[in-house]
């Protein structure tokens, strides 16, 4: 019992990353449509970014919809008006998402707890009405139509056309895996471990020398970059940037996916996005009020499964391992007895 546990961490390419990779490969094969799989990955990106704030830093932000919507609008506008290439548009989306997140973050983290949450809520409402009012740019209620989906190109040479939904899935899947691996690196970096320290005990974190505001601000910015990317991909997927992208409802959805999947675990974000989008896809045809079930699911998770779906799965695996460990010595003993 008294052995010194080595804090060996699995490499960022092993373990959880392999499970994510398997899911990304299997999803288009098992799900009814590739577009559904694409949507899941896009929202998994948004949930991943939300998780960095909620699960790792302990910040409940209602601002995620802002960054998502900004990503969608900014990439769509530069593609429509200035014929930006795919990577150009995605870069714009990430830059704008990150910049707006830094701005919102800089103001919101001046307060903690409920006041922080209220500030993000206020920003969310404000930006929504801004998008609604600037209908010349955003299309207002009608949304921004005819968003292109440019091909993957390098120096004017087209490498891969993305109009086919399978090709687009492949592209989103590669981005997702890159961000997933990147997120694991961030979480196991000095920065990421400090975020957990801030979540656990902010006073103590600042007493040992961390300027917690700077850490929160960087977490916000990174979260905004990834959420902006997700928003841009979503607009490309739909060929359309609806006003609902930037609504408070979008922030809520992203938060719910994060919490149901399991805040504090990256696979949880994929699981959360996957289960909610699939649930919506399955149930919305049968029962238009399916969102009611989402409420029930959220209540259940918050009350009984604090680690979310992924936490539940982990607990099951743990229990199974324990049982196996119990059985093995007794089996060995039985064999020994039989031998005698």
């Amino acid at each position, binding site marked *: 019992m008294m052995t010194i546990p080595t804090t060996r961490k699995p490499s960022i390419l092993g373990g959880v990353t392999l499970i994510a990779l398997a899911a990304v490969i299997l999803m288009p094969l098992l799900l009814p449509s590739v577009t559904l799989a694409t949507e899941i990955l896009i929202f998994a990106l948004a949930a991943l970014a939300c998780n960095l704030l909620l699960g790792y830093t302990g910040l409940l932000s209602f601002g995620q919809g802002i960054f998502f919507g900004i990503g969608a609008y900014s990439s769509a506008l530069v593609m429509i008006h200035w014929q930006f290439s795919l990577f150009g548009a995605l870069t714009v989306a990430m830059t704008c998402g990150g910049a707006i997140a830094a701005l919102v973050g800089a103001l919101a983290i001046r307060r903690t707890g409920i006041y922080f949450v209220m500030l993000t809520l206020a920003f969310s409402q404000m930006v929504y009405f801004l998008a609604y009012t600037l209908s010349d740019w955003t299309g207002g209620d009608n949304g921004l139509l005819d968003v292109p989906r440019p091909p993957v190109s390098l120096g004017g040479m087209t490498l891969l056309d993305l109009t086919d939904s399978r090709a687009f899935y492949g592209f989103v899947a590669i981005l997702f895996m890159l961000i997933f691996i990147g997120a694991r690196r961030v979480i196991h*970096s*000095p920065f990421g471990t400090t975020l957990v320290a801030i979540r656990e005990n902010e006073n103590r974190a600042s007493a040992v020398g*961390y300027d917690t505001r700077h850490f929160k601000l960087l977490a916000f910015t990174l979260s905004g970059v990834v959420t902006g990317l997700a928003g841009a991909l979503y607009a490309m997927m739909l060929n359309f940037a609806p006003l609902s992208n930037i609504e408070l409802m979008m922030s809520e959805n992203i938060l719910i996916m994060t919490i149901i999947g399991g805040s504090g675990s990256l696979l949880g974000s994929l699981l959360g996005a996957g289960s909610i989008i699939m649930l919506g896809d399955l149930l919305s045809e049968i029962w238009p009020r399916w969102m009611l079930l989402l409420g029930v699911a959220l209540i259940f998770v918050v009350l009984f499964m604090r680690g979310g779906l992924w936490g539940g799965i982990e607990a099951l695996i743990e229990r199974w391992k324990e049982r196996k460990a119990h059985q093995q010595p007794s089996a060995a003993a039985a064999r020994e007895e039989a031998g005698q």
Partner: protein
Amino acid sequence: MNTITPISNSTTVQSGEAILSTQGLVLAYGAFRAVDGVDLQIRQGTVHTVIGPNGAGKTSLFHCLTGERRPSAGRILFGGHDVTRSSAHGRVGIGMARSFQITSLFQNLSVRENLRLASQGRDGHRALTFWRAEESKRCHLDQADEVLERLQLTARAGVPAGDLSHGQQRVLEVGMALCGRPKLLLLDEPTSGMGIDDIPIMTNLIAELGKELTVMLIEHNMGIVMSISDRITVMHQGRILVEGTPEQVRSDDRVRAAYLGECA
């Protein structure tokens, strides 16, 4: 922003000189002055205890020194630098570290991770690197292991800090402060809530630390105060009543009247 410039080696305080001093320090809550014009000198290499009856202003003074509260007036100098207005986290980088009266740990993280995070805290903004593995900074792990050894908690390294006994948590609390490699250690009632059996561990630790660095502490337990302190400052109603060696303080009539009389 960090307004403190690092101390260069040439200005390192000589033994015996004041490493920390306050000048006319005041902390007022409205009309009430919890700290009322304190001139405190903490000399390099000493264990310096601040005592006083309840409400004497010890904790308020401590809060000013750690940066938790901004003094209403006066100055705080540390190693020749004015730290009066610098932030709590900013003081760590120049060599001040603190422990909390009410245990304040990262409860769900392992003991080792608690100490590693505390070591990493000294990096300040350099800890913002998010593209490198945490293991890339081997020195923080080594530092954590070194402190673990010193606290005799090596066997408990992987246990969540919240699962330690209260006494061990108090020791870890001091260990966290040690990880910042401080020049001055500020301890707020290090033995508070500790069982009688655990107290010697803490007093030995403090006495040992006192040989290497400067320790300033607030303490209630008179036995401990008298045995480990080089100097004692007695506070009463926000002011310094007496300062001196344990013997001087013990035999001072004013102290008896204000404080010791209560307990005796």
